[in-house]
C-alpha cells in the first residue's frame, strides 16, 4: 500500500552537499522543495559534540557516518570475466549516509579542477596526437569549461569560507599559491591554516628542488568566518579528528555549518530523513519523471509527486536508481553502446612514509585538509610526450589520520607485534610522517557499473555491480609521480623511508579514496553521456542527476569543489531557464 502525498515543485534524492546546495537555491526562489535522505538527521551539537566527536573507534573504525553494508552495498570485481561479490565491510572508500552526507565526514580539501581537466580529450589530441591515446581509454570533454564554472567555484568557496592562498588572481601569478591553477576572480575568503612541522619540512625540500609548494585549500577554517547568508563558522582547533568525523566546533564547512541554519527557517523546504528512495516514477517511457517512491523508517511506502526530480544520492546510488527506474540506456561493455554505468572511474593514490631520528613532528596536531601541496607533476603542467602516459598527481604532506588506534608507524624491519613493536611505536609515533600522491584515473572500456544479476538488497532490489581495475596508463603515471615523491622525501633528510607504490589489481580492501566518479556522465552527445552540461537527463528533461557521477573521468584533485560548482550551476539553470521554458537546456 503506497500513500500518495501532496505534490511539490521539486524533490531531492539525497541530502549531502549537492542536495543541500540545490535545496538552498530552489527554496530561496520560492519553490516547494522536499529532500529525502536515507540516513538519520544529524546536527553539530547533538550528534558530534566535542565531548563525543573524537571517538576513533565509533567513527574511524566502525564507520558511524557511513552507510551500513547490511542496508546498502555494492558488489565488486576487477574484470568482466569474474563473478562479483558483495562488499560486506567498507574499505577502499566510505559512502556516507545521513543528513549532510559526505559533507559531514569529509576532510575539507576544496579544489577547483584545472581548465584543461574539462577539455581533457581535446587537449590530449591537440598536444600529442591521436596515436598517443590508448584505444580503450574512453575519456571525454565535459561540455563545460573552467571559465563557466569559475563563478560557481567562487560561490561555494565563499559559502564555506575556504582557507587558502590564491596562485592565479585574474591571470596574475601570485607567489605562495598554486601557479598552475586556473585564474580566480578573487582570493580565498580566509587565509591558509598554520602549517605543522612535517608540512613545513616537505615544502622546504620541495622548494629547494625547484617546485612550487602552496597550502592545501581547506574547509577547516583558519579563522572564524560569516558567510554571505550570515551563518557563522568557527576556527579549526587542529584536533586531528576530521576525516570520518563530524566537526564539534563548527570549524569545518558542511551542510550543517553553512546551509542548514537557513533551510531550517524556510517554510517551503522540508528534509525527511530515514527515507529511502526505491525508484523514480516516470511516464513509462522514461521521458518524464512523475516523482519518487520511498520507504520511511517504519517501512511504509510513499509516492511523492514532484514537478522536478533531482537525483543527488552519491555516485553509486545515482547510477543504481537510474538503472532500477529504467531511465536511460544501460551501458553494454561488449558493444560499448549505452550510457548508464559507463565511464566509472576512481583515483590512483600512493604514498611514502618517512621516519626521522630526532625531529619531533607532533603528528597529533592535525586537521582534515592541513598541509602543503606540490602541483608540478599534475595534469598538463608538464610534458607527457616522452613519458608515454596521460594524467598526473598532486604531491602532498597532509597532517591527518594520526589518531591512536589506526596509526602505529614503525620503521621497516620492525616485528608486527610484541615488546619490540611497542618500543618502536613509542619512538616512531612522534617522528614519523607520510606524504602522498593523489593521482588521476582515466575512464576506460572495462570500468563500469551495472545491476548485479545475483545479489539483492533487503528490499529485493539488485545491488549495483562495480567492475574496475587500474588502467596501465594510470599505473605508469602513478609510478612516475611516486618516484618524484620519493625524491622529495629523501631531500627531507629522514632516517628511513618506505615507498608504497600502487599496484594492480585494484583491491577493494585498503582505504584509498572516497572519490568514486562517473557512471552517469555529462557531455554534449546523448550517445556518450547520460546528462547534458546542465546535468539534465538527455531522456527525461525534468530529471537532473547531480554529483560526481557526472565526471567523465577523474582528475587528481578531491572532487567536492567541482561537485558543488556543478550543483550550483544546475540550480541556477533550473531557476533561470528551466522554470521559464521547461524542456531540454542543452
Amino acid at each position, binding site marked *: 500500500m503506497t500513500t500518495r502525498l501532496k505534490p511539490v515543485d521539486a524533490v531531492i534524492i539525497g541530502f549531502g552537499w549537492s542536495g543541500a546546495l540545490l535545496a538552498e537555491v530552489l527554496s530561496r526562489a520560492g519553490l516547494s522543495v522536499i529532500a529525502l535522505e536515507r540516513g538519520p538527521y544529524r*546536527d*553539530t*551539537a*547533538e550528534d558530534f*559534540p*566535542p*565531548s*563525543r566527536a573524537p571517538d576513533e573507534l565509533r567513527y574511524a573504525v566502525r564507520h558511524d557516518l557511513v552507510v551500513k553494508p547490511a542496508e546498502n552495498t555494492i558488489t565488486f570485481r576487477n574484470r568482466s570475466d569474474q563473478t562479483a561479490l558483495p562488499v560486506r565491510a567498507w574499505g577502499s572508500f566510505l559512502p556516507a549516509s545521513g543528513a549532510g552526507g559526505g559533507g559531514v565526514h569529509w576532510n575539507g580539501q576544496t579544489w577547483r579542477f584545472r581548465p584543461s581537466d574539462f577539455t581533457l580529450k581535446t587537449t590530449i589530441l591537440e598536444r600529442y596526437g591521436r596515436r598517443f591515446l590508448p584505444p580503450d581509454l574512453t575519456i571525454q570533454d565535459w561540455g563545460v569549461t573552467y571559465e563557466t564554472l569559475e563563478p560557481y567555484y567562487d560561490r561555494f568557496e565563499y559559502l564555506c569560507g575556504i582557507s587558502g592562498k590564491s596562485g592565479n588572481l585574474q591571470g596574475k601569478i601570485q607567489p605562495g599559491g598554486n601557479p598552475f591553477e586556473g585564474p580566480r576572480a578573487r582570493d580565498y575568503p580566509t587565509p591558509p591554516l598554520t602549517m605543522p612541522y612535517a608540512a613545513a619540512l616537505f615544502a622546504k625540500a620541495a622548494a629547494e628542488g625547484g617546485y612550487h609548494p602552496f597550502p592545501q585549500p581547506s574547509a577547516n577554517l583558519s579563522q*572564524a568566518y*560569516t558567510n554571505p*547568508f*550570515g*551563518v*557563522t*563558522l*568557527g*576556527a579549526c*582547533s587542529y*584536533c586531528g579528528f576530521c576525516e570520518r568525523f563530524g566537526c*564539534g*566546533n*563548527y570549524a569545518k564547512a558542511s551542510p550543517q555549518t553553512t546551509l542548514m*541554519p*537557513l533551510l*531550517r*527557517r524556510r517554510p517551503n523546504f522540508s528534509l525527511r530523513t530515514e527515507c529511502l528512495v526505491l525508484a523514480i516514477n516516470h511516464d513509462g517511457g522514461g521521458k518524464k519523471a512523475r516523482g519518487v517512491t520511498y520507504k520511511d523508517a517504519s517501512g511504509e511506502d510513499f509516492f511523492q509527486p514532484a514537478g522536478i526530480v533531482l537525483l543527488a544520492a552519491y555516485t553509486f546510488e545515482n547510477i543504481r536508481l537510474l538503472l532500477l527506474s529504467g531511465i536511460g540506456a544501460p551501458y553494454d561493455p561488449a558493444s560499448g553502446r549505452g550510457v548508464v554505468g559507463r565511464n566509472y572511474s576512481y583515483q590512483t593514490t600512493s604514498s611514502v612514509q618517512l621516519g626521522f631520528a630526532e625531529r619531533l613532528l607532533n603528528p597529533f596536531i592535525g586537521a582534515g585538509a592541513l598541509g602543503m601541496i606540490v602541483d608540478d607533476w599534475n595534469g598538463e603542467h608538464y610534458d607527457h610526450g616522452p613519458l608515454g602516459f596521460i594524467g598526473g598527481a598532486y604531491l602532498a604532506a597532509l597532517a591527518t589520520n594520526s589518531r591512536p588506534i589506526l596509526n602505529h608507524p614503525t620503521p621497516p624491519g620492525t616485528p608486527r607485534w610484541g615488546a619490540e613493536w611497542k618500543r618502536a611505536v613509542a619512538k616512531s609515533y612522534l617522528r614519523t610522517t607520510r606524504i602522498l600522491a593523489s593521482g588521476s584515473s582515466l575512464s576506460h572500456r572495462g570500468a563500469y557499473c551495472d545491476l548485479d544479476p545475483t545479489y539483492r538488497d533487503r528490499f529485493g532490489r539488485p545491488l549495483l555491480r562495480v567492475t574496475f581495475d587500474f588502467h596501465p596508463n594510470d599505473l605508469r603515471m602513478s609510478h612516475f609521480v611516486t618516484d618524484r615523491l620519493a625524491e622529495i622525501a629523501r631531500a627531507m633528510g629522514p632516517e628511513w623511508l618506505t615507498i608504497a607504490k600502487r599496484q594492480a589489481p585494484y583491491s577493494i580492501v585498503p582505504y584509498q579514496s572516497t572519490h568514486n566518479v562517473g557512471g552517469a556522465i555529462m557531455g554534449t552527445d546523448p550517445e556518450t553521456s547520460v546528462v547534458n552540461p546542465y546535468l539534465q537527463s538527455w531522456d527525461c528533461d525534468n530529471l537532473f542527476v547531480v554529483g560526481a557521477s557526472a565526471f567523465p573521468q577523474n582528475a587528481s584533485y578531491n572532487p567536492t569543489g567541482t561537485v558543488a560548482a556543478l550543483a550550483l550551476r544546475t540550480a541556477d539553470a533550473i531557476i533561470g531557464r528551466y522554470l521559464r521554458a521547461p524542456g531540454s537546456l542543452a
Partner: protein
Amino acid sequence: MKAVLCAAFFLLLAAFCARAEERVAAGQYLTILADCAACHTPPGGAPLSGGRRIPTPFGWVIAPNLTPDRETGLGAWSAAAFDRALRFGRRPDGSFLYPAHPFPYFARFTREDSEAIRAFLATLPPVHQAVRGADLSFPFDLRFLLVFWDALYAKPAPPLPDPGHDALWNRGAFIVTGPGHCGACHTPKTALGGDVAARAFAGGVVAGWVAPALDGDPRTGLGEWREDEIAQFLATGAAHGALASGPMAEVVTLSGARMTAADRAAIAHYLKSLPPPPPSQAAAPPPHATMAAGEGLYRLRCAPCHGRDGEGTPGLFPRLAGSALVQASNPATILRVIFNGARAAATDAAPTGAAMPGFAGALDRAEIAAIATYIRNAWGNAAPAVAAGDVTP
C-alpha cells in the same frame, strides 16, 4: 446625486475598513512588543492557542487560549472583560489571574491599546482547545489569596511620559516597564513572586535561568554595553560577545527581532539610563589550586570553542571574559549550560543558532564546579566560587 451619495458611502466604508485594518495591525504589533507568543503559543501549535505550561516557583501556570473560539478562547469575551483581564488581571467572574500574566506591566496599556490587541486576536483562526488555568501547590492554588498579592505588588507605575526626558527615553520606558515586561524576569522577586521594587533590573532567576542585571553595573549588568549593541542583541540575539539562549532566545526570535529598529533603539536608550547599583563587596578570589584545576579542564574542554582567553567568536561562541551571565552572583545559568548545553537564538539576521552540547556525561560535578569557578575568576572576571554541591542539572 444618488451616485455622489453612493461614492461617499463607499469612501466612508473604505476609510472605516482602513482604520479597522490599522487597528488590527497596531494590535498585532503590541502583541509582538508584549511577546504574547512566548507563553500563549504552544510549541509547534497554532498561534496563541494556549496550553503552554509556564513554570513558576509555585507550580505550573498554564497559558490560556487567546484565539476567538467561543467556548475555549476569547470569542465570547466582551471588550470590557478582555480589558480587565489584560490590564488589571481580573477574570470575567471577578476572580484574579495569576501574575504569571504580567498585568502589573500591562497596566501601561491604554484602553485603546487593549481594544487594538483584542481586534487583532479576533482575526486569528479560532482553535478549540480547552486549557486548564493552573496546576499550583497549596496555598498558591487559592486564587482568592491573590487579593493580598495585588495589594502588595500591583502598584501603579510612575506615569509616562516623563517630561524630564526626551521622546526616545519615554518610548523606551513605556516598552521596558510596560508591554516588554522586562522586569518580570530581570528584576529580583520576593518570596511571593512580586518585584523587589527597590532593586529594579538588578537581575533575577526564571525557570532556572539567570536573567542578568540590566542596570549600569559594569560587571553583571549593561555598564560596558553600548546602546547599539543592546539594540543589535534584541534584533539578532548576538552582540557584545553575548548570545541569547534559554528563555531570552525566545524573547529575541518572537519579539526583539520582529519589533521596529526605532523601538529597539528606544529600549537600549532607556536601559542605558538606568543607574549602576551601589558598589558591593568583591568576593574573595578562589584558591590557586581550584583555579589551576579549572584552567586545566577549561583548556581541554572549553578552549577549542571559547578560546584560551575566553574571547569566544562573535555570533557563534559567547565571550566568557567580561560576561555578565558568567559573573552573575547566581551561577545557575552557566552551570545548567555546562551540564545540559544550550542553543542560541536563530534570527533572519543571524541564522546560525549554534548550540553548546551538554557535558553531563563527560564531566562530574566537581569538574563542572571547577570550570565554573575558573571562568568566573579568569581574565579579569570576579564572582563567588562554585562548589560541587551547587551543580544541579
